[in-house]
């Protein structure tokens, strides 16, 4: 939703002068190899506000990826290393005292709430993974146009705020409501482009676990992660976690807007799987995440010294359920051994894992796979779809033991 002109928010401009000036800027200090079939080298950057070293995918609007080694260090991803993804320009100056969250549409009473108004509601906190629907897109084969993420377009945080359902109750949802639409302060440069708005089915919007959050790991949200408010939809992809949230509209019919009806659609099967080149079949919006395990202490194509046991660590999540097991394989998926699970911080959180494999000298393909508490096992074969969403298969890690 476009901000008003009251001086609450300030937008930057991408100007030709800025472009030319930046072409003279110093080159990036370091590069990472994201392991794509081609064009996987990316610079790292420390140039973004409230962010430490991040993988630079795009400056404007920012796409910043978290290095996998960050996930190796703690259950919660630090705010200054948390991935960033914007479709459109957004204000770079926000006054939370003047910010208002408007609630309207199919409600008894339209409201305009301040953060202080929200703070009077019961406060809750939930640990949850926030993962881009396109996380890992650059690893698909065949390759797919779009943001070329490795597996670092995800993170885990303790989100703090109030329940969406409590806020909706203040306005009074009328009978016949079918969806709730969310908009933020980001605004397309070209007026005719579709405003970024996402919707949840009314039943999901009224569940206990959907939050309007202002806190992230005990701090205010970084601006690039949605200051001062963002929607938190645990278990669902981050496309629904609308940043700089300023409008909530209860709908009495389905949301036919571009970002629900035309974008973020996947093949209508649980694995979002399609055959490359085949005609597109029925499609549905991406919603809940699939179980995944990602190895964080060994990068793909790494040479390691021989040891009695080679430690293998990583993070797993169950999608919209908790993690039941993580298993490791040293032989490309023929045989599996259980890994030890770390602290249980709730069904939506990262669950770290630790195991050890006996790796004699030579080349090996090591794997980790997660099974959710709902009994959904991560498949050995990778799924594929034309938009590169919902990457769900096991990611093999090639190692050579010297």
């Amino acid at each position, binding site marked *: 939703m476009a901000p008003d002109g009251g001086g609450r928010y*300030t937008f930057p401009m*991408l100007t030709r002068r*800025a*472009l*030319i000036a*930046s*072409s*003279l*800027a110093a080159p990036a200090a370091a590069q990472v190899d994201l392991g794509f079939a*081609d*064009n996987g080298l990316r610079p790292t*950057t420390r*140039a*973004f*506000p*409230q962010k430490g070293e991040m993988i*630079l*995918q*795009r*400056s*404007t*609007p920012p*796409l910043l990826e978290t290095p996998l080694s960050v996930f190796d260090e703690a*259950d919660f991803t630090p705010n200054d290393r948390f991935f960033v993804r914007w479709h459109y320009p957004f204000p*770079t*100056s*926000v*006054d*939370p*005292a003047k910010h208002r969250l408007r609630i309207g549409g199919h409600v008894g009473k339209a409201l305009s709430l301040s*953060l202080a108004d*929200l*703070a009077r509601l019961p*406060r809750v*906190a939930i*640990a949850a993974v926030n993962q881009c629907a396109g996380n890992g897109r*650059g690893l698909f084969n065949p*390759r797919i*146009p779009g*943001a*070329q993420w490795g597996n670092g377009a995800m993170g885990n945080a*303790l989100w*703090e705020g109030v329940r969406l359902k409590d806020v909706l109750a203040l306005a009074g949802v009328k009978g016949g409501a079918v969806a709730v639409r969310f908009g933020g302060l980001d605004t*397309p*440069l*070209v007026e005719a*482009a*579709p405003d970024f708005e996402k919707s949840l089915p009314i039943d999901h919007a009224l569940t206990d676990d959907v939050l309007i959050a*202002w*806190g992230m790991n*005990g701090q*205010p949200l970084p*601006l*690039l992660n949605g*200051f*001062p408010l963002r929607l938190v939809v645990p278990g669902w992809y981050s496309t629904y976690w609308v940043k700089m949230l300023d409008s909530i509209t209860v709908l009495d019919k389905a949301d036919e807007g*571009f970002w629900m009806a035309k974008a973020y659609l996947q093949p209508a099967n649980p694995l979002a799987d399609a055959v490359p080149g085949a005609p597109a079949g029925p499609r549905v919006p991406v919603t809940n995440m699939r179980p995944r395990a990602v190895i964080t202490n060994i990068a793909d194509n790494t040479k390691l010294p021989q040891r009695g046991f080679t430690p293998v660590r990583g993070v797993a999540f169950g999608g919209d359920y908790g993690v039941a097991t993580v298993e490791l394989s040293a032989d490309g998926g023929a045989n599996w051994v259980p890994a030890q699970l770390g*602290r*249980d*911080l709730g069904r939506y959180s990262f669950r770290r894992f630790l195991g050890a494999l006996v790796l004699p000298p030579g080349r090996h393909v090591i794997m980790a796979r997660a099974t959710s508490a709902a009994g959904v096992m991560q498949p050995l074969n990778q799924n594929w779809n034309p938009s590169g969403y919902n990457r769900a298969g096991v990611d093999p890690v090639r190692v050579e033991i010297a």
Partner: protein
Amino acid sequence: MRAVLAFAALALVAAAPPTKRLSVNLPDAEGLLPERYGVSSEAVNNNCLACHSAAMITAQPRLSRVQWGETIAKMRTVYAAPIDPADDKAILDWLVAD
């Protein structure tokens, strides 16, 4: 585990909403795209960098002329990008000149 939950509970009590204005500066974008193998980048620079910076293009995998044409069409029809149709050929020539 218990310690973590206790910490979380404490953080919860302390975490009132923010009240102070937050202002940041974003870094400059990646700059203009260079000529490639003698193919001018003028059309791609003029038409493609208003809404996104150059890395959106340079980060892509090797795409065919047809795939890049689909991308231009998407930018035009979905995002209303004011791309001059007369520039399409010059844009595509640069995009596949690698």
